Each structure stands twice: as C-alpha cells, then as structure tokens.
C-alpha cells in the first residue's frame, strides 16, 4: 500500500473518531438543554394552572356560591371559606370553590376540570376572568346550560367580591363569540352596576400562586 494511502486512511480514521466524540458530546448537550426546556415549560404550566393559595391571613367567612338547584336554575348556597382580603385572590378563591366544591355532582354549573388561567380587575371595576378551554368545550350546549354557567360565575363574584361592576369572560386568553354555541361572550355581564371602582383593584394580572399542595378550600 502506498505511503500516501496509509496517511490518508489514518487521517480519515482520526477524523471519524473526533467526529464521533464530538457528536456524542453534542447529543448529550442537546439532551440536557431539551430537558431544561421541558422542566421550564412544566414549571411555567404549573405556575399558570396552580390553584389560588390560602394564606394564614385569609379570614374564614360565610361565602355565597351559586350552584345548580334542580334541572333549570341556580341558587345561592352559604359555605364557610377562608377568603383573602385582596379582591383578585378572593375572586379566584370563590371561583375555584364554584368549580371544585359543588355540594353534589348534580349541582355543578361549570365543568369540573375548568382551570382559572387568569383573573384581573381593572381600575374601573371591570373583572376579567380567563378560563381554560374546558369551560367552552365541556359546558353542555344550550341557552339554559350556558346561561346558568355564566350566571353562576357572575353572581358568585358579585356576592363575594365588593366593588366589581361588570365581568368579561375569556377562553384561554381570547375573546370567544359564544360559550358553547349560544351565549354571547363578546360583551360584558353586569355584576353590580352601583359599585364604585375598587381602590384596591389592580390592572396588573394577578400572579399565579406558587405551586403548593394547598387544597384551597375555596
């Protein structure tokens, strides 16, 4: 074998070995970065979907939650809940209670796996409630069922959070034309027309509560 061929083969072998070593390192690095991304995504998801937290400063009060009453109506039910003094936190807590703690399954007005993705209160007293897709996709289609769902949200907020004046419902951060084909979500729903704008209202989106095992009694 000519000398130049041997030199070429050795050179190629060295290049292949270097390539394999580099490729392995590259793969390990990509895997590590990918893992970091997944972790970050998962943390962000948990942060967004985390239930409102109960803090030691929450006061146990009698809250009024509107659940189903028979096949056709909703009605107020008095429950004891530790509620925040902060209107945004308080709103999230009563809505979470509405979703998660109906006295019986038949009294559920909102799909059980509905998530509260965000809740904001604007300085003018407008409450903006952002729900996950489940609210739209799992609420039974129909004027009666959709109206009861929206009314249960509106009346629960109006009964427990002072100074809210009107409600805007978003689905996954977007304005939806209807809830499930019937009830118009492009406008606002009256909460308490006579309420003044809240001095404590915040135009800044409420930061999601940190993931905690707190089974907020909502």
């Amino acid at each position: 074998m000519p000398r130049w061929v041997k030199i070429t083969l050795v050179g190629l072998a060295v290049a292949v070995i270097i390539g394999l070593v580099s490729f392995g390192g590259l793969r390990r690095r990509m895997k590590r970065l990918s893992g970091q991304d997944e972790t970050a995504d998962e943390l962000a998801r948990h942060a967004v979907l985390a239930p409102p937290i109960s803090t030691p400063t929450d006061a146990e009060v009698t809250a009024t939650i509107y659940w189903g009453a028979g096949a056709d109506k909703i009605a107020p039910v008095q429950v004891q809940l530790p509620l925040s003094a902060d209107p945004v936190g308080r709103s999230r807590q009563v809505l979470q209670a509405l979703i998660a703690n109906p006295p019986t399954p038949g009294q559920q007005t909102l799909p059980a796996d509905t998530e509260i993705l965000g809740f904001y209160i604007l300085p003018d007293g407008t409450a903006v409630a952002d729900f996950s897709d489940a609210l739209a996709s799992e609420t039974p289609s129909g004027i009666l069922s959709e109206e009861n769902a929206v009314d249960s949200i509106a009346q629960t907020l109006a009964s427990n959070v002072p100074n809210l004046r009107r409600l805007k419902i978003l689905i996954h951060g977007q304005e939806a034309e209807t809830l499930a084909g019937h009830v118009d979500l492009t406008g606002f729903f009256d909460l308490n027309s006579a309420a003044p704008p809240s001095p404590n209202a915040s135009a800044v989106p409420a930061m999601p509560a940190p993931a905690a095992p707190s089974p907020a009694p909502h």
Partner: protein
Amino acid sequence: MIDAAHGGVDNGARGPNGVNEKDVSLALARGIRAELTRRGFRVVMTRDADTDPAFDDRAATANQFADAIYISLHVASTGTAGTVRAYFYRIATPFATIVPAAGVETNSQPTTPTPSPPGGLVPWREAQAAFDDGSHRFADAVQAGLAQKFSGSPATGTSAAVRDLRSVAAPAISIELSSVASLNASSLEAMGPSVASAIAQGILEFHPFGMPGGSAATSPSVPGILVPSPAGPAGGGTH
C-alpha cells in the same frame, strides 16, 4: 322570521341517543311555519335545509324587513323534560351610564354617554338594543302561552345573552325546548304544534304590527315575512 338554529357542520346540542339540535330545530321550524301560515301569517325561514348560515347572515335576512318578528328555535342539553323557555336578549348596562355610589371617589373615566353615530345609524352588534323592550314584552307574551301548554315552564320570558339575537333589528326571541338529553326527536318534534300555537297567541297579544291578514308589509324585499300588517318599529337603520 323563523330561524332554525345551527345546521351543517354545527350540530348544536347532542343527545345521548344521537339526537342533534340542528335536525330537531329544522323540523320544528318547518312545522311551526306550516301552522303559522295556516293561521294567516307569512313566514320566512333563515334556513330550510341542513345549512349553517352565520349569526350575522341570519340577522341580515331579518334586517331586510322593516317590520319583522324574529324567532329562533333551539333544543337544550339540559332542563326539565318537556319544558320550554322564551328568551329575549340581555343588554348589559352601558358602562358609560354606570354611576358610582354617592360619596365615593372614583378614578374611572367620565360617565358621559358615548354620542350616537350620525345619521341615526346604530352599530350592527347593538341592533337589538333598540328593540329591547319590545322583545321583552314579546317573550313574556309567548312564554305565557308556553307555560299553559308545557307544565313546569316559566311564567314569564327570560333574559339571556343569546348570540342569535344580538344583531337583529326587530322584536326577537329565542325559544328553547328541553331537552335532547331527556326526549327523543319525535317527542321533541311533537311539541311543535303547541309551540306554534303559543307563538301565534303571543304575536296576537303582542301585536306590534296589528292582526294577521292585514295589509302588506311596508318594505319586504323578500316575499313572505312574518308580519301581518305594516307600521313596524321605526328604529334607526343598522350598519
């Protein structure tokens, strides 16, 4: 104007036995059209096949007429079996007119109402607002008849933000039967004649345009509007 809700790819409410709201609403609409026609009304339908006109197209069909009455037909997923409700559009309180409680300082914007657009036109999405009172009275009139025929139904009309009605420039109601979950299609369709009778009775009681068999509508660019006689509500046009 009779509107059979949903249609085409939009099934509406679906029952456990495969009952689709879109099919029952169309069957009901056809039966009610026949009954109202027999009683001397002239009826136009927003759809007469398995099609799905957009909400605004349905409203536009009604808004061609100066003196229509609009009735959309629905079948619920829920509710006590065999009950029927008449809904009128719930208008949210115009925010500019909300007056804060006395003695409380506010940081809201001035509460001066927004001036109306020139020329008497109203925004398309607010067309129903001018007919709020008439729609309410019409729903009450129809619901009174429904309550007599369908035990357990409410005594008066119900307000709800029904999307169908928002842009209709006419007295407009939605009628919803309960439900695809508790009754089969034939049972629901069998309710049609009584629903038609309550509608006819409600129209005569409400009679915004007079009695059936009156003179022709003032501006029907499409023949056969559900309007017994002229002189409809003189609201501004819509755009």
